[in-house]
Structures are given as structure tokens and as C-alpha cells.
């Protein structure tokens, strides 16, 4: 049996944990630089507040409904996520943290010890709510894809109480009938469109297709999804845990940038973030993409992206920062008011099997990077950084509606009235 546990509107729910004054109010959280709405709590959703809408466009609507607005408080979310994941880990010996707010579970060895999955799901929900005050949905399924399906049902479909179990093929059908193909894990926008052309609209209709035909028209990946929907496990646990194929760090600036060095600092910071993420998933980058642009709303839209191939794959922060500095002359143009920039690792390699090079010495220095990461972990992110990332705050985030960092900053701990 597979399980998927994830938090309901995680960012918005996290805002409510240490602020009881907004527990019963509609809450939305804005993306970086307060650009768009990225999370809305269930109360806000019921008011019809749309997600992924630019904040300035629905400012009025939010005001009218008395919606509480928050900037993304990543320090708080990271801490709450860790707490939630640790609580979840008590319920399964094989957990894979899939994203900041979701965990896959694989019940293999003690499958038979659990007699009532529905009850078990509620135990998990209750424990997480009690100990962290985060609401979660729990789905169990015969395959990883069906666990995702069950989780969707648990949270989004009427008639479920936060837990859904697909332990037989028959129990999957009524749920699949109520799901669009686009709701299925691994079915993207392009495939959805192509399926619709063939009159396949619901997950149920997709599950009924002949896997062989699907493979011919789409790919092996889509064929697997069809099999998984019918209870045949095709994704091995290792594939569920497969590391990300691309890693990006990108952001728009609070203030426009025209200065070469400031842009270099911003890009070097993105390079550091990418390098850190690479190390976390034991990957190395073979090809790095560096890009910057002004705003598409400007009179003259300027965008430049340069790919930098490494002679040897690396995840060393200073090598990534160096690559940024090397390509920047091709990106920077004076007179452009830069609004956005980023760095992306677009071709990755695993740490395990690295092809050596006769003419290039491997100087990725993993020991130094381990020390680097440990210092930042112990004394807070940014305690140590590459010099080129600079100290400039100019390109940093605009967070006008930021809540306190209740659990990571002494200054911000909750006040309790006595």
C-alpha cells in the first residue's frame, strides 16, 4: 500500500498556526515580491478568491471580503514543514518527502499489521493537527498514482472526511469518474489536450484505455500512468523518489536593477541556491542556464539567456558563481532596467557515476561544500556565502505583509496573555 499525506493550503494554514486571531478568517498568501496569490485557505476559496491572480488585480475584492493578506514567510513554512514531516514519519518506516507539504509513504513490511486504513489515516490526521495545528489530507492507494488519486478525493471531493482509501480496483472507479484527466499525477497540460481530442476527459475513461495504444500515441510514461490507475504498480519506489530533473532559482526584484555588479550579485545568489539544492539531492549540474530580463510590460522587452556547459559536472557553489560571472557580459546591457533574473541547472548528473576527464581536474571539493552547508544550517542561511553574492539587499524580496517568524526568531515568538 502507498500513502500520500499533504497539508491543506499549506502556506495559508501555516499562517494560522501561531495567529489565533485569523483562524476563522479568509487568508491568502502572496508569492515572492507580493506578486500573485499562491495559496488561499478553504474559507478564502469558498469566497471565490482565485489562485495565481496578480495581487493588484484583485486588491479590491480582497478588501471587500476582509481577506487577511500575507507575504510568503518561508522561514516559518520551512520550520512547520519539518515538524509535520517528523510527525508523519512515526506512521511509516519508508517515507519520501516529495515537496515542502507532501510525503509519500510506502507500506511494505508492516502492510498487514494495519487492519483499517481509514482509521489509520485519521490517526495520522489527528496527530498532525494536535501537534502542529496543520490540517492535512491522507490518501491510500494500491499504487503511488492511486495514493495521489485518493489524496485528491480526500481533500477535494464531497463525501470524504480528509481520508480516502483505494484498496481495491472497485473502490477506485467512483473516484476516477469524478476526476478530470488533468487531475492525475503525471498528466500535464499537453497530454490533457491531446486526450480530450480523443474524447477522453475523465480519469475513469483514461484508466479504461489499452496501455499499449497509449504507449504508441504518447509515451512509456503515460502508459505507466494508465497501468498505475488500474492498480498495477509500474513506478518503483526509487522512481517515486527520483530526484528532480531540473533545478531553478529565479525571482523578480523588489527594485529595478541597472548596475552590472548588483545583477552579478543577484545571479550569484541564485547560483548558490541552485548549488545547495543540487547537493541536497546528490546531483551535479552539467549545463547551467543563466538569464535576466526586464518586464514584458516595458516599452522594449529585453531577455537574454545563456547556457554554460561545465567541463566536469559540479555542485560546488563557487564554480556555479564563477560560471555566472563568466556569462554575465553576454547578458548585461547598460540602459536596461532589469526586473527579473535567475539560474537553472538544466542538465543534471548523479553524484554516483561521474565520468572523469583526463585534461580537467575534479576540483568540486565536496568536503568544503559540506562544511559550507553545515555552517549555514547551524548559524542560519546566508551566514557564509560566496563574496560575489555580495551584501546588497537591493534585489531582495519585497514582503510587505510578512508575519513574524514565530519559531525561528526570538524577537518574534508568540505573546501569550496572562
Amino acid at each position, binding site marked *: 500500500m502507498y500513502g500520500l499525506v499533504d497539508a491543506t493550503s499549506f502556506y495559508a494554514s501555516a499562517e494560522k498556526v*501561531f495567529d*489565533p*486571531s*485569523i*483562524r*476563522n478568517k479568509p487568508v491568502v498568501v502572496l508569492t515572492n515580491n507580493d506578486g500573485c496569490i499562491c495559496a488561499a485557505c478553504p474559507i478564502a476559496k469558498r469566497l471565490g478568491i482565485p489562485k495565481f491572480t496578480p495581487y493588484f488585480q484583485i486588491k479590491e475584492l480582497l478588501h471587500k471580503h476582509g481577506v487577511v493578506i500575507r507575504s510568503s514567510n518561508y522561514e516559518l513554512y520551512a520550520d512547520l514543514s*519539518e*515538524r509535520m514531516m*517528523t*510527525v508523519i514519519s512515526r506512521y511509516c518506516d519508508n517515507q519520501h518527502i516529495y515537496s515542502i507539504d507532501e510525503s509519500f509513504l510506502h507500506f511494505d513490511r508492516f502492510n498487514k499489521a494495519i487492519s483499517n486504513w481509514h482509521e489509520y489515516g485519521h490517526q495520522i490526521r489527528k496527530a498532525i493537527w*494536535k*501537534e*502542529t*495545528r496543520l490540517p492535512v489530507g491522507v490518501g491510500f492507494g494500491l499504487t503511488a498514482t492511486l495514493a495521489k488519486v485518493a489524496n485528491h478525493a480526500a481533500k477535494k471531493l464531497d463525501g470524504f472526511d480528509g481520508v480516502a482509501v483505494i484498496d481495491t480496483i472497485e473502490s477506485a472507479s467512483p473516484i476516477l469518474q469524478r476526476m478530470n484527466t488533468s487531475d492525475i499525477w503525471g498528466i500535464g497540460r499537453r497530454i490533457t489536450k491531446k486526450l480530450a481530442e480523443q474524447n477522453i476527459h475523465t480519469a475513469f475513461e483514461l484508466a479504461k484505455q489499452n496501455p499499449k495504444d497509449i504507449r504508441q500515441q504518447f509515451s512509456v510514461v503515460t502508459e505507466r500512468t494508465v497501468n498505475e490507475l488500474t492498480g498495477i504498480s509500474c513506478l518503483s519506489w526509487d522512481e517515486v523518489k527520483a530526484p528532480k530533473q531540473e533545478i531553478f532559482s529565479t525571482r523578480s526584484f523588489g527594485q529595478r536593477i541597472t548596475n552590472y555588479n548588483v545583477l552579478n550579485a543577484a545571479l550569484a545568489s541564485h547560483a548558490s541556491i541552485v548549488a545547495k539544492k543540487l547537493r541536497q539531492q546528490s546531483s551535479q549540474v552539467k549545463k547551467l542556464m543563466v538569464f535576466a530580463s526586464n518586464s514584458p510590460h516595458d516599452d522594449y522587452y529585453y531577455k537574454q539567456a545563456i547556457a554554460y556547459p561545465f567541463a566536469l559536472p559540479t555542485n560546488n557553489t563557487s564554480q556555479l558563481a564563477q560560471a555566472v560571472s563568466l556569462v554575465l557580459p553576454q547578458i548585461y546591457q547598460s540602459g536596461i532596467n532589469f526586473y527579473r533574473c535567475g539560474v537553472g541547472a538544466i542538465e543534471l548528473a548523479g553524484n554516483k557515476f561521474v565520468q572523469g576527464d583526463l585534461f580537467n581536474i575534479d576540483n568540486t571539493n565536496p568536503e568544503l561544500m559540506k562544511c559550507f552547508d553545515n555552517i549555514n544550517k547551524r548559524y542560519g542561511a546566508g551566514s557564509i556565502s560566496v563574496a560575489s553574492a555580495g551584501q546588497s539587499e537591493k534585489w531582495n524580496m519585497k514582503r510587505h505583509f510578512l508575519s513574524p517568524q*514565530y*519559531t525561528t526568531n*526570538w*524577537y518574534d*515568538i*508568540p*505573546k*501569550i*496573555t*496572562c
Partner: protein
Amino acid sequence: MKVIPIYIEAGISGFESPAAEYKELGLSLDKLLIRHPNATFIGQASGVSMQGVGIFDGDLLIVDRALTARNGDVIVANYNGCFVCKIIDKQQARLLSASKHHQPITISPDDDFQLEGVVTRSIRLHHQAPELKACMV
């Protein structure tokens, strides 16, 4: 330049500390004070109604959500959108203060009320902590 990576004994390093092999991790206050790290948060007391149980204005409260409150426990609750620290009287659904100047509060069904956790420890800072300076105002 070639460097030979061999350590050379200077002969004046003296004896190795006889205590070196007895070195262990130092005492950790976290370990002593926090039983369920994932379910625990730290808050700061504001007000004088709990002085009777030794909680003074500005003290730190360690709040454990994993424990189930028993009658008479010092707890933190969400009372009408505000975190309050009181003694819970479960039988009569009341919040009691530890001061004769404060009356018990009866929780009515109209109140917004949730138990948030049990106060397992409180910490007095007899000497000001710079990290908390702003909170003490």
C-alpha cells in the same frame, strides 16, 4: 613548490590531556526542557494574572501540544482569537487565573475556544537577554 604532507613532531607539545577520552557532549537545556520538539513552541508571557504559579510578565513559556491537558494543568488556549495562559478547570469549563485579583472566566458556547497546549515549563530571565529586549517593553 612541493609540499611534503607529513606532520613533524616539534617535541614541545607536552602530554596529551588525560581527560581527552572522557570528553562527552555538554549538557543541553533543550533536552531537559523539551520532550516533544516537533510539538513544542516557545512563547512569552505578558501580564500578571499567573504570578501565583510563578509565571511573571516577560517569562518564557514552553508549550507542548503533544500532551493532553489534565484538570488543573497550566495551559495555553486560543480564547476568542488570543493566546492566553491559564489554569484549566475542565469540569466547570472555566479558565482560572493564579491571582486573587482576577476572576475565573467561564467558557461559553459563543466563545471561540481551543486548547493549544500544556505549559510544561516556564523560564525566568533574571538577567536581560539581548535577543528578547524588544519583547520586554
